[in-house]
């Protein structure tokens, strides 16, 4: 396996605790908000971001993120526009950027063209929940490697130990631990079952760092996640915050402070 070195691997080399990544949907609430939100999150001190590539049928997402996807699409967001918006972002954004979305828009854009664009604008990795890793390894890994784009895989509570080991083997960067058997935005609080799963995975001593996502929505859940992993993702709670409090730097700062004090 070729270890791709980029901003993500650099980040984990420097920092391994209490990492915070925030998800937001590109082109939401307004088409041109992508850069505003990105800038706001960097100023607020998050460690990296996942920018959602909106999709008409996001089956792994709950209502809040579905709705933000719908609004972004109505605003006219698509991959071409997103890459245009990100074109010179590396003049002001130094944190790692991941794109998160579903496989079909990427297929229509062309996997190679997509990876090339990612490299060109400075995207470091992608998370595509409906691209299973066996298919990725068979069909797309060589293309991703060619452009130095990491593909981050998910594991979930029902993922077997053997499969977790296998995913750990082929992963570079980090592993995305889905906190519970759920779509985004559907759980609140961390249950004992979730804790047992966090503990089981921690005890496996994987070679990759792990971040926990889904259901992380406040300081308490963030801190709990950080006891078991290198950090956590927040998505739905941030989209709700943008809806209610807007995209100003102050609004974003206060959100980030409410998660990681």
């Amino acid at each position, binding site marked *: 396996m070729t270890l791709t070195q980029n901003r993500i691997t650099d980040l984990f080399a420097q920092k391994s605790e209490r990492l915070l990544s925030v998800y937001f949907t590109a082109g939401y609430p307004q088409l041109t908000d992508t850069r505003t939100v990105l800038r706001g999150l960097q100023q607020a001190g998050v460690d990296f971001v996942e920018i959602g590539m909106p999709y008409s049928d996001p089956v792994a997402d709950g209502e809040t993120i579905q709705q933000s996807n719908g609004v972004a699409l109505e605003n006219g967001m698509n991959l071409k526009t997103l890459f245009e918006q990100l074109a010179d972002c590396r003049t002001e954004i130094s944190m790692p950027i991941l794109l998160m979305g579903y496989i*079909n*828009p990427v*297929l229509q854009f062309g996997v190679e063209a997509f990876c090339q664009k990612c490299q060109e604008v400075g995207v470091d990795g992608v998370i595509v929940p409906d691209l299973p890793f066996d298919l990725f390894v068979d069909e797309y890994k060589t293309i991703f490697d060619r452009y130095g784009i990491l593909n981050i895989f998910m594991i979930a509570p029902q*993922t077997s130990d053997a499969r977790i080991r296998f995913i750990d083997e082929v992963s570079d960067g980090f592993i995305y631990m889905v906190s519970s*058997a*759920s*779509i985004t935005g559907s759980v609140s609080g961390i249950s004992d079952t979730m804790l047992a799963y966090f503990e089981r995975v921690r005890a496996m001593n994987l070679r990759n760092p792990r971040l926990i996502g889904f259901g992380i929505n406040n300081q308490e859940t963030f801190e709990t996640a950080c006891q078991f992993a290198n950090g956590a993702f927040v998505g739905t709670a941030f989209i709700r915050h943008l809806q209610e409090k807007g995209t100003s730097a102050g609004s974003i700062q206060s959100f980030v402070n409410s998660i990681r004090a």
Partner: protein
Amino acid sequence: MQTTLEPQTSFEVTNKGFYGHFGGAFIPEMLYPNVEELRQNYLAIIAEPSFQAEFQNLLTDYVGRPTPLFLAKRLSAQVGATIYLKREDLCHTGAHKINNTIGQILVAQRLGKKRIVAETGAGQHGVATATVCALMGLECIIYMGSVDIERQKPNVDRMRMLGAEVRPARSGSQTLKDATNEAMRHWINNPVDTHYIIGSVVGPHPYPDMVARFQAVISLETRKQLLEKEGRENPDYVVACVGGGSNAAGAFYHYLNEPSVRLIAAEAAGHGVESGHSAATTALGKPGVLHGSRTILMQTEDGQVTEPYSISAGLDYPGIGPLHAHLFDSGRGEFYSITDDDALKAGFNLSKQEGIIPALETAHALAALNYMSLTESDVVVVCLSGRGDKDLSTYTKYL
């Protein structure tokens, strides 16, 4: 049309779940354990003698199989060929859908599942699922688009009477695609105790293959019945409508490797293929991924799924099963686009000519007969996938 046939096995699903370029299992990791559990077990379960005995028994005594193969004399005279109707409308609950739900509920029981979730468009699959859940005493949740809840009301009432909970899908076009999204989300949220009974030959591998195997009884019976009636197992044509494609997959199954049998698929063109209100997937779609498989899909240039339209809720879907995408791609299947108007006319016509009110979905298959340039000597089997009772409120608007 010339068909270049590939080797025998080419219409069978591969180990990884592909038919040619189409199929696979494009699912989030949260669904992987469920789908993998099913993939590892379905063939062995179906092969178990106890499964086969129970399945056959239920098909006979509960569903009412074999369904008749009826020679439609007046329709034959009209069309100018010998037309047989494979009477899936006479199955218990009124459509072919129950062949699949009987099979899947038996699989679900053997996997130890306690609860069933399903999507439905026309409500026929929802009713068939609610029925087998009642029969087996399993909890049943059905997602149905809000638009379909309106236009297929009798089926909503039937599902409720059978003890199922019907949940409206309010996103997107509020039809079958959106109901399927909601059912998948429900399954992600309830992975351990729930089985998802998909209603057509769609979804991640092994669903398309499993559903096709359960529906294959249609062509298995057809062969025998046609031999008795015509002295030949193979008709010249088999015609079926394609929403996701389960009745078509079943009607075609035992003829896939019989090149002399032409396989005709009728898709819903809605107001017309170019009207912007259509569900004619092969005419309008491109390869893409929806609901866990790579198939032909109606979508924008950016890969966003297009909202389909058809007067018939069961055909109002932007994709087709991967087997059908392969039949189209390889030329083995011939696809016709049938408008709402053509389907309505064909539905009224069958009612008056043969005393059979077909489902609006089925009416699309009947309408295809008018475009097929048939000759007197042709023997044609039309899969009469369902009865039209559920569509009366739509039909009567055009009386």
